[in-house]
């Protein structure tokens, strides 16, 4: 048979990433209140999921379906992780050892427990920038404790299925997130580029040239690795006086060991670490789930977002106990992994193992790498992470969406906290959405023949953002005996909406006009019945208290 023909009819070659998601479509149909027959099918399906989860078939698909490519890409990723882990340790203000161990531990654990095969997790810039003040003010041991706590918080988030909450993060906020992340990574390189010998710039330029130009010659070897080797070799051969990784701190020459963070276990400690842990947990999950989405799209396969939350939680909890800093999924590395052909859990796992091997074996050599080479790589990561398309899109995308993106970016760059930026972006997009929906609101009215009875017909959504328009639409002073408010084509969503309706009814009554409400739909009626006061005896007195 022609080897180029796909091996069709063998779905076993690549079943979906995770069994729970595998039958997603069917499960959704199960939850619908269909016939009883459907329920029997549902039970059977969960049975299939159980079988898949423990079957060797699944093992094969998620670990061994793509061995050669996964090992190769894992190696490429491991080589790229070394400079990044060192750079992120330096951002956080800790020994490179902390970031390197963390990257090993997080990569291996998320490979096993995560929900997105083919995604790379390790020590990241996004979480590192959150730790700076904690390390500076309280020291390393508190960082380990904060890492453990962040992991536990992520486990809770996973157990509560907060992965589903990602749907509130709009596309614009996500774009803002990656752009802000790219800017943060770039900004972290600035200290290495200010007040240094001119030679440094030449070396950074050389590194960048190799990184971007070598792939035009060959794509068989990782160009960042070549950049490191060449820049280091030149520095050593010519005895250039450049800052090296060794100048930044001590490198590990041993395997990580289990340790319990040396901190007092009291409320005060919790007060210190909780804000940091919360930030790390939120940012870690955001970047991880966002990256999972990127990998989902690239590979056209589904992932289990809630399992990913749990995986990140396990990874951080354990990593904290092994003297590592918190991390999460990495957008850049995951893209590199997919690009290099990595698809299963094996690539991330092997990246972790290869990383540990490299740092233990090559420890001495890593120390002589000039910082200029790392800076070049981090600039590449920053450029690769930034969504350049979003700048072009500023012209064409809706202005409000662009504003949400920009607010997210500015907030992050200002606070150095991705979580705050995302919260700002989500809030703003929520407000924009509410104001847009509030425009889906219209009241028309007509007067009866005898000019004694006016009927108002309300169309659209009555909620906090549309209540003032709602109130303004009625003419309370008109000389009519009776008013009918027809809400059959509108929906009352919240307390403000109920309040606005109450207010309108009471105002008409105070003018001596009889009011009739018609056509309230079921949901609206329930809400008004529970919250409305217009029909209760002490209505007026209550109204004043509003």
């Amino acid at each position, binding site marked *: *048979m022609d080897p180029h*023909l*796909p*091996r*069709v*009819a*063998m*779905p*076993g*070659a*690549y*079943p979906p990433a995770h069994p729970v998601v*595998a039958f997603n479509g*069917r499960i959704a149909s199960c939850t619908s209140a269909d016939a009883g027959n459907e329920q029997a099918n549902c039970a059977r399906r969960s049975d*299939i999921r159980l*079988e898949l989860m*423990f*079957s060797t*078939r699944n093992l*094969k698909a998620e670990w061994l379906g*793509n061995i*050669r*490519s996964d090992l*190769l*890409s894992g190696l*490429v*990723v491991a*080589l790229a992780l070394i400079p990044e882990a060192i750079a992120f340790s330096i951002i956080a203000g800790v020994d490179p050892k902390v970031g390197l161990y963390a990257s090993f531990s997080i990569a291996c654990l998320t490979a096993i427990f995560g929900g997105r095969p083919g995604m790379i997790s390790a020590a990241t810039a996004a979480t590192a920038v959150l730790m700076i003040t904690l390390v500076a003010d309280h020291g390393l041991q508190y960082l380990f404790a904060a890492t453990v706590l962040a992991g536990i918080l992520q486990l809770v988030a996973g157990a509560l299925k907060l992965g589903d909450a990602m749907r509130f993060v709009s596309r614009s906020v996500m774009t803002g997130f990656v752009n802000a992340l790219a800017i943060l990574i770039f900004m972290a390189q600035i200290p290495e580029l200010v007040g240094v010998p001119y030679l440094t710039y030449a070396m950074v330029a050389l590194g960048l040239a190799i*990184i*971007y130009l*070598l*792939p035009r010659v*060959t*794509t068989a*070897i*990782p*160009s*960042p*690795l070549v950049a490191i080797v060449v820049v280091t070799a030149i520095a050593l051969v010519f005895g250039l006086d450049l800052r090296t990784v060794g100048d930044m701190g001590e490198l590990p020459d041993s395997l990580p060991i289990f340790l319990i963070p040396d901190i007092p276990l009291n409320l005060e400690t919790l007060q210190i670490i909780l804000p940091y842990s919360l930030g790390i947990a939120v940012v870690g999950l955001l970047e991880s789930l966002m990256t999972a989405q990127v990998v989902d799209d*690239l590979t*056209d*396969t589904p992932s289990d977002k809630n399992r990913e939350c749990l995986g990140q939680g396990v990874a951080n909890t354990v990593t904290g106990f092994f003297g590592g800093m918190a991390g999460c999924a990495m*957008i*850049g590395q995951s*893209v*590199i992994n*997919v*690009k*290099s*052909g990595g*698809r*299963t859990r094996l690539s991330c796992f092997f990246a972790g193992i290869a990383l540990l091997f490299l740092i233990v074996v090559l420890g001495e050599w890593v120390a002589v790498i000039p910082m200029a080479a790392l800076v070049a790589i981090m600039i*590449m*990561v920053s*450029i*690769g*992470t930034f*969504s*350049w*398309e979003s700048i072009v899109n500023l012209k064409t995308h809706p202005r409000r969406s662009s504003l949400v993106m920009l607010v997210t970016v500015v907030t992050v760059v200002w606070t150095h906290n991705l979580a705050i930026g995302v919260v700002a972006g989500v809030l703003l997009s929520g407000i924009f959405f509410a104001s847009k929906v509030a425009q889906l609101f219209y009241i028309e009215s007509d007067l009866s023949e005898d000019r004694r009875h006016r009927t108002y017909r309300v169309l659209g959504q009555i909620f906090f953002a549309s209540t003032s328009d709602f109130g303004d639409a009625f003419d309370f002073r008109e000389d009519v005996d009776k008013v009918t408010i027809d809400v059959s084509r509108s929906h009352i969503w919240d307390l403000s909406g109920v309040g606005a309706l109450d207010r309108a009814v009471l105002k008409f009554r105070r003018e001596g006009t009889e009011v009739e409400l018609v056509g309230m739909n079921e949901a609206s009626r329930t809400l008004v019945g529970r919250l409305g006061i217009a029909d209760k005896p002490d209505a007026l007195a209550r109204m004043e208290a509003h």
Partner: protein
Amino acid sequence: MAKILALIDGSQHYTESVVDNAEFVARQLSADVQLIHVIGRRDLGSAPADLSGNLDLGERDELLKELAEHDEQRAKLARKRGRLILSDSAGRLRENGIERVEEELVLGDLLEAIEVREPGCDLIVIGKRGDAADFAKLHLGSNVERIMRRAKAPVLIVARTFRPLHKVLVAYDGGQSILKALDFLRSSPLLKRTQIEVVKATNQASDPELDRVCEDLKGVGLNVRCRTLQGDVEEAIISECDREDIDLVVAGASGHSRLRAFFVGSVANEIVRKCKRPVLLFR
């Protein structure tokens, strides 16, 4: 109207054998044949790999475009190939006088495809292994195993070459599944004219239960012979197949707990794997 599902994957040997067997069964049962070719998830490792390890401007979008184009091309090829396989096989069946043949190309999971089409179907025909499984190591296709475990209808798992059914061996174990097989023997015209050997692996020389089964089958006019076999079930049955020149083994899929089946592999599984005969499996 009886209906059989025939699953073809386009593998060199098995596709032909599945079609031939389907033809034979369809003629015996005067059944409709539904030919199914399933295109599953994409193959891993087929995507282009670029080990340069760098991130260019707009790398994500570029990579997405590249991978999407790659998948698109392969998917188009797979469909084209699938349609060819189906029309070839259907043409063959029609040439040989099977009139009611339906062809269907299914995208998605094989097992789900079967579950949807199983109701109202009397028999499923499938090859022992697909393109991917290694014949030399006697590995079963992973899909075959899944179908063996799941399908409600009887499954005819065919060997590489078709042989007309003259002599059939029934591996009686007293389990629920084999009782279904006996019902099938009694009621279906498929094996009416064949010689049927019912065997049971036991340490005794005779077995009253087996005798009862034998009498029962003879009662409906089947050509039956009953015997007990000594020793290990699987090996006894496999050597019996060779000695008696058996054309088909009828077996029950259950009999052991799922836990045991998971670790050790069920007896049925082993028979399908090691015995180079078609197996008609009941669950």
